[in-house]
């Protein structure tokens, strides 16, 4: 691309994808995927382009931290792409800049996906996106560590879990358990939801569109306290974070027995050659050990494809965009085998290619996720109209966990900021 590489709908970009024939409908696609996921998505796009269907997709990588911002600007300046990836539960937030696709969907598309994923994409009765996957967070255990402490990784309740943690701390050199996997507010938010719901609490109450902050009640406060005690009183984890990804590092090297992380986190275990380390044995357990008498549910999310507004887009292009999205969301076995995600399309999720992967068979990450989805043990975060994952709201939780702030003021600061944003 030249100096004016941005351009409008008719992108001139042709670097990465083989050319479609000149009569093709050209589609721009923005995605934020990095590392493994980027490779696989690229492969999917190439696959799609190589089909003789009169559509050509130009993909662009946009860095995640700036993604939303850039998308808003692009829509605003009339430069938006036809398709853009984002979280499924962001429908309300993205609603002003995307358009519903019900008119363009092929018949029965709805039935291709797990219901929970499909329903999550509805805003006021319209479909705003198609889901690529359902990814969730659960409990990774390093089996070597657990073994050397003589601990069995089936935790039914908080007591069993706590004593296991105490044993690990006392009997091994390793730390027992980290509540978060990445030094970022979003990781704390996602893990907190799991514990909060098991304790019977909620992030917000009310209906989409009129949410009220709820986690500043007793349950929310107690759950936050539990979280902070992991690095405090309990001594299961250190309040230091040596780098953004330090917990992953510790887990692989056996310095950490267990942590809450996503299905896709296995990607981060890979070494330079793209393989999982041979001497690492781990499993992926349902994270239903937190105290309280709420429901046993875990947090989940879907990478999804949205359709930004752009007055320059023709109807044919919009149609082609949806066609492309259906293809990518319904033919993505790679997304599981290499990306570590549970595909959101039922038939893909249960295909033999997916079921035969190590991740399903040996490590059980995708399998566990599949079970939780089919057992209705996962739940999406609230569909707020604000950018709820922002550090503005969840930074305080990270700070509580790192013992940089006390629980009371951390929760209050977080809740105040979110309330204020929700009421704007």
């Amino acid at each position, binding site marked *: 691309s030249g100096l004016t590489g941005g351009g409008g709908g008719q992108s001139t970009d042709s670097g990465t994808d083989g050319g479609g024939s000149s009569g093709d409908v050209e589609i721009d696609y923005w995605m934020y995927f990095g590392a493994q996921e980027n490779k696989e998505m690229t492969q999917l796009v190439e696959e799609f382009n190589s089909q003789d269907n009169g559509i050509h997709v130009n993909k662009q990588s946009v860095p995640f931290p700036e993604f939303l911002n850039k998308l*808003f600007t692009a829509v605003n300046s009339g430069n938006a792409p036809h398709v853009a990836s984002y979280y499924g539960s962001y429908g309300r937030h993205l609603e*002003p800049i995307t358009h519903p696709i019900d008119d363009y969907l092929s018949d029965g598309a709805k039935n291709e996906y797990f219901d929970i994923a499909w329903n999550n994409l509805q805003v006021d009765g319209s479909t705003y996106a198609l889901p690529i996957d359902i990814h969730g967070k659960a409990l990774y255990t390093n089996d070597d560590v657990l073994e050397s402490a003589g601990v069995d990784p089936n935790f039914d309740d908080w007591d069993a879990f706590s004593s296991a943690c105490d044993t690990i701390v006392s009997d091994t050199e390793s730390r027992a358990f980290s509540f978060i996997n990445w030094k970022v507010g979003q990781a704390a938010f996602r893990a907190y939801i799991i514990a909060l719901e098991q304790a019977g609490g909620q992030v917000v109450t009310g209906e989409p569109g009129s949410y009220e902050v709820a986690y500043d009640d007793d349950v929310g406060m107690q759950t936050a306290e539990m979280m902070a005690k992991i690095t405090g009183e309990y001594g299961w984890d250190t*309040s230091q974070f*040596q780098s953004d990804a*330090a917990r992953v590092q510790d887990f692989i090297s056996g310095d950490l027995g267990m942590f809450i992380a996503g299905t896709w986190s296995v990607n981060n275990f890979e070494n330079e050659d793209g393989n999982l380390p041979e001497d690492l044995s781990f499993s992926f357990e349902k994270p239903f050990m937190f105290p309280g008498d709420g429901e046993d549910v875990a947090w989940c999310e879907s990478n999804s494809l949205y359709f930004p507004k752009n007055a320059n887009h023709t109807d044919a292009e919009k149609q082609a965009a949806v066609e492309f999205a259906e293809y990518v969301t319904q033919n993505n076995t790679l997304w599981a085998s290499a990306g570590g995600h549970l595909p959101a399309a039922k038939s893909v999720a249960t295909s033999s290619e997916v079921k035969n992967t190590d991740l399903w068979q040996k490590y059980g990450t995708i399998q566990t996720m599949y079970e939780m989805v089919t057992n209705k043990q996962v739940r999406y975060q609230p569909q707020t109209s604000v*950018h709820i994952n922002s550090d503005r709201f969840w930074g305080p939780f990270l*700070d509580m966990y790192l013992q*940089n702030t006390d629980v009371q003021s951390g929760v209050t600061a977080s809740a105040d900021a979110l309330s204020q944003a929700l009421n704007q």
Partner: protein
Amino acid sequence: MSNVETTGTRSPSRWERLFDRSTRELLVGMLFAAPYLVLFSVFLLYPLLKGLYMSLHEWNFLEPSKSTFVGLENYTRLLEDPAFWNALWNTLEFVGLTVPLIVGISLVLALGLNKELVGSRVLQFVYFSPYVLTVSVVGIVWAQMFAQGGVGTQYLGWLFEGSPLNSKFWAMPAIVVTTVWWQAGFYFAVLLAARQNVPARLYEAARLDGAGPWRMFRDVTLPHMKNALLFVVIASTIFQFQVFGQPYLMTKGGPVGSTETLVYYLYELGFQTRELGFGAAVGYTLLLILVGVSMLNYVLVGTNDE
């Protein structure tokens, strides 16, 4: 000299007859000035005015025409926002720590390198070269230095129990150290030039007058470097006031907002939550602060010049 082609007086040309001298100068002058003036007015002056305008509105990003005029509300909100005061305080802390360190270290480097040393070119390279690095390289390398297994934690870990970037107290000093490493070379070069411009004769006169090394420094070197030192103080103050890259890359403003600086705050408002009107008000406030700082400095310089 009576032959051909002497440079005799000639009559005025057409261009000369068409416009008088001052009109011609004006036309030619504007022709030369125009390209920059266009750039300047479009990309500097206009945004400056527009920023003021935006700061008086609740700015609708998607549909600017739906922005509503709110008067000074953004400014009053700003003054009531604890995050603003936190960012201001953090920025002052950063500047207050960084500027003296930069001045001190660059002065030491400049005075030392003014002597003839074996390998002075190499030394100069080492001191100055960090300045040509981009903030992303600097920030990431130093984040590593202060992370697990990094040099900083390895040797100074006892100070801050693990990584300083995790500590409310030490995160800012860590960013300060990073910045000093990055920037000191620039000011070192400035001060070195100033030192080398001190007339050698003065040291000889001072020697004959019986001055020792300290006296020479105090009575000859320092007074001569005064203007350069003032430049260093002013320039680094203004530049460091705008610190953004280091906290963005090293701490994301944390822990507990202890490294959230004014520009970082501005960036979040403008580009994360897209409250552009409010962000513009922050920008203007920053401008006022910096103009105040410069004024103060100019006053200081002014009274010091004889």
